[in-house]
């Protein structure tokens, strides 16, 4: 028969870790998306030359492994800036910028997919640049970018497992703590995986729903 030392209290401990994973992901995805839209619009608006510094900045966040970003940011803030920031804050900050770098690319691609003539049609009706953006370009860009954005949000959720390096005890770290104590790695990882699935599944479904709703034409 299958036996385990896992207690109800341990499950609650894991659930708390899952809660941290959800909160870190939610904060990072929300801030990262807002920044990503801003950066994406800026990149399109400024053109390739003027936006080169921004592009370089975003490329760094996209190409350096998240683990390294977290460690470096944490050390920089602590040792160079001499600031006492919580690991949770640092984790959210780095993950937000990491998300924004990917999101900016999605936004840029989405905006580029809007035909220039459609934008001219909007402007020729007397709409301002901002009205064109608000009512025509961003809604159309969203449709193009949405499937990839859902993928990005799911990816950030899983990548958030790395924030343990800045002493944030999220789901995977909680699992590791239990593994060390109970010595039942396979069973615990299975449960941990189930938790990740339970978190991801509604998001993936929600994405499917949004996609369906936005392609109503």
């Amino acid at each position, binding site marked *: 028969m299958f036996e385990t030392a896992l207690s109800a209290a341990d499950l609650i401990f894991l659930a708390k870790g899952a809660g941290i994973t959800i909160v870190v992901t939610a904060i990072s995805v929300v801030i990262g998306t807002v920044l990503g839209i801003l950066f994406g619009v800026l990149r399109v608006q400024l053109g390739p030359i003027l936006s080169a510094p921004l592009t370089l900045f975003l490329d760094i966040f996209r190409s350096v492994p998240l683990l390294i970003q977290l460690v470096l940011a944490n050390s920089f803030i602590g040792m160079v800036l001499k600031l006492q920031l919580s690991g949770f804050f640092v984790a959210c900050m780095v993950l937000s910028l990491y998300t924004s770098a990917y999101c900016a690319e999605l936004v840029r691609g989405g905006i580029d997919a809007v*035909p220039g*003539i*459609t934008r*001219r*049609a*909007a*402007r*020729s*009706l*007397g*709409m*301002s640049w901002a*009205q064109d953006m608000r*009512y*025509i370009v961003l*809604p*159309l860009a969203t*449709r193009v970018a949405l499937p990839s954005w859902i993928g990005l949000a799911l990816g950030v959720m899983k990548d958030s497992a790395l924030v343990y390096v800045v002493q944030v005890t999220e789901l995977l770290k909680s699992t590791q703590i239990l593994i060390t104590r109970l010595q039942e790695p396979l069973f615990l990882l299975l449960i941990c995986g189930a938790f990740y699935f339970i978190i991801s599944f509604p998001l993936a479904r929600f994405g499917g729903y949004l996609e369906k709703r*936005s392609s*109503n*034409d």
Partner: protein
Amino acid sequence: MIEIQNVHKSFGQLEVLKGIDLVVQKGEVVTVIGGSGSGKSTLLTCINGLEPINSGKILVDGTEVHAKSTNLNKLRRKIGIVFQQWNAFPHLTVLENVTLAPRKVLGMAKAEAEAIAERQLMHVGLGDKLLAYPSRLSGGQQQRMAIARALAMAPDYMLFDEVTSALDPQLVGEVLETLKMLAEEGMTMICVTHEMAFARDVSKRVAYFHQGVMAEIGAPEQIFGDPQHPETRKFLASVR
């Protein structure tokens, strides 16, 4: 009145308009014909300030389009334009396509904008498509929707940039009928077109553009019956 005075326009090294002079009176229908690359479409986008010009002047009711002090968003309210394709806002219903600018640009109440939109859509024969999305419309219906959308702003001038060129042949007629109807109602129009029969029937004057120059302008009977410029003759012979 639209006054175009010695307008020059280049895209990089390529000069597409080489000193165009043209005056279009209120209530007049002018069609512009010519081969591709003759600069005729560019002229339209210069008239409503979508494209800057290099020199010369374009005045619409006395307002200089390309002057720094001109509020283009305001000026464009009285100049409607319809392009060859990609006019529709695909994420909005037909009704929303038409009500968007009256609501957001003119600040009209929703009910008022919808009443105007419905009237314009009926006018172009789309009264039964109000809640459809553009992708459910044929190309001809999309073009008529774009016309209704421009008309909902109650413009004084309408510019048509080869509005039938991207359509299947059997859909061209319905769009040209709509343009004819507008012309008969007294709308001031500049139509860039490849439809010679339409140009002959509807316009007061026909302009022939060749390589960025307005080679010839005159009444349709004269342009089609007795073209003076050798290039006009060559062009008309090639399209007949």
